């Protein structure tokens, strides 16, 4: 007997759950063969609002976790992704990647997660500093998470661009709302399933599919979003982000690289989504010596 094919429902990822879009709207992007990739959620500003609420709720717990534990969880994402390699490769092929490149893209994504997992409990030492000052103070600087970060994922890749942006953001203890690539959305939704299975607390990463242009405004003007990371190179979009973000002085970061390049990962991508806190701690003058730390 011929088996009836079970089609997958692609849903969005908010607060550790997989709801359908609040708007009830869908779009049907086409794969490389001209066939529909499926009914993908066309998320609305209400989904943005719900995601920001979820991300804010998750922020305290995530940024407060021991750094080592964050590293373990990032490593776990890589493990689970490894276990689902075939699924990601076939989704990339449906979306137009060659078999060789699809395999390379998934491998690179896994390696990139491992790379940032390693940084989780190390960037503090590299980026932190003890500063020489002229008074009797112990003056030191530590990096802190920025908070809730909006991400406009690169539109030209389905998986590697998204992973390359999300990994450094969550490694730094931030939570995020990701607007996936509109034309290549499949891996974003499947990656959400990976996150959901890898001890990442709900709300740390929220992934929405749909029209980036439509969703950018409510995201970049949202008073509860602390920064926006842009993975494209459209000057108009960048200008719009910079202008619209002034309502609460969001930090705008632009990361454009060839993500398929093994070297397109760096400590700087973590530090760009961190802030520095400097503390002045009074100290005594011991034995007449001006102690200098």
């Amino acid at each position: 007997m011929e088996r009836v094919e079970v089609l997958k429902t692609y849903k969005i990822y908010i607060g550790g759950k997989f709801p359908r879009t609040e708007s009830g709207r869908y779009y049907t992007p086409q794969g490389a063969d001209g066939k529909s990739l499926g009914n993908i959620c066309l998320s609305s500003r209400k989904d943005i609002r719900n995601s920001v609420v979820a991300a804010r709720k998750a922020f305290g717990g995530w940024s407060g976790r021991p750094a080592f534990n964050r590293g373990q969880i990032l490593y776990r994402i890589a493990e689970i992704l490894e276990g689902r390699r075939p699924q990601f490769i076939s989704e990339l092929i449906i979306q137009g990647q060659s078999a060789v490149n699809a395999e390379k893209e998934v491998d690179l994504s896994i390696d990139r997660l491992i790379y940032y997992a390693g940084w989780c409990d190390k960037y503090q030492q590299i980026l932190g500093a003890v500063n020489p000052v002229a008074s009797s103070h112990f003056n030191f600087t530590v990096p802190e998470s920025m908070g809730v970060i909006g991400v406009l994922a690169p539109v030209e890749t389905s998986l590697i661009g998204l992973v390359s942006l999300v990994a450094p953001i969550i490694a730094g203890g931030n939570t995020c709302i990701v607007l996936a690539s509109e034309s290549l959305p499949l891996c974003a939704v499947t990656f959400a399933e990976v996150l959901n299975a890898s001890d990442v607390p709900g709300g740390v990463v929220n992934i929405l599919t749909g029209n980036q242009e439509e969703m950018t405004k409510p995201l970049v003007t949202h008073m509860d979003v602390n920064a926006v990371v842009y993975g494209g190179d459209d000057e108009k979009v960048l200008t719009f982000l910079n202008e619209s973000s002034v309502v609460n002085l969001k930090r705008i970061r632009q990361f454009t690289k060839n993500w398929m390049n093994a070297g397109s990962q760096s400590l700087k991508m973590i530090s760009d989504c961190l802030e520095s806190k400097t503390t002045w701690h009074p100290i005594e003058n011991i034995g007449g010596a001006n102690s200098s730390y």
Partner: protein
Amino acid sequence: MNKKNERNQYVVPNFSKSPAVDKVGVEERVSRFQKRSIKNESKVQGLKMALNMIDLTTLEGKDTPRKVKQMCYKAKHLHDVYNGLPTVAAVCVYPSMVRVAKDEVKDFGIKVASVSTAFPSGQAPLKVKLDDTKYAVDQGADEIDMVISRGKFLSGEYDFVFDEISAIKEVCGAARLKVILETGELVTLDNVRRASDIAMYAGADFIKTSTGKIQPAATMQVTYTMLEAIRDFKNATGIQIGMKPAGGISNSKLALHNLVMVKEVLGNEWLTNEWFRFGASSLANDLLMQIMKAETGVYQSSDYFAID
């Protein structure tokens, strides 16, 4: 029973024959209130109305005069960057904090409500409850939020509950009496209806769902049952009674659903803070954030709103 209430001269019904409540029907009706489409302009009006109906509440063992003063400041200055906002209706505190609160808000048209009668359990002798209430009134409370004796009610001693409410009403004087049923402990909607009837016939000016200390608190099913009791009481006696859902109403959407329900069950007459209140504390900021969203077109952050 069939006794006459001395003050109001209406015949008190037999409470063991209070109407039974159709639970499935209530749920069906309540779900419809949640599906009304509310257009932007009406929404803003509704949000402001809800803001004006709030009893801003702090009822904690750790309350201090400074904490109460801070809350009163919030009651007076909800969000000063927005011109023309209403104030909340009242602040709700323990009897020991009434004087502090009264001094803070008396010039601003904000009332002071005090819980009493051994709130929240109500497990104290009548004399203690009367003294508790009298103290709150003497300290300047405009409104008294009393709790009923749920243990007695559940044992079927309806006369006891009735007489207790009447006695408290006596010492309230000019202060309006809100009777808290603590519906989370009454278990069934039939009990909620019966307790509502007892409270109203015994002299309540307001009936209130919960203390906020027990879950579930003000569910829409419970509020709907109490609104129906209020409507029937008005039809039977001509006396208007107020309603105060308290506990669990923490966001604007729920508040708007409640307003829709009040309008459709009781009518416009009840849509003022004279007859309808929300007992809440976190609701105020959510309403303010929604109002500012409508004003600026931008989603808001709690970072920019005062903690009450």
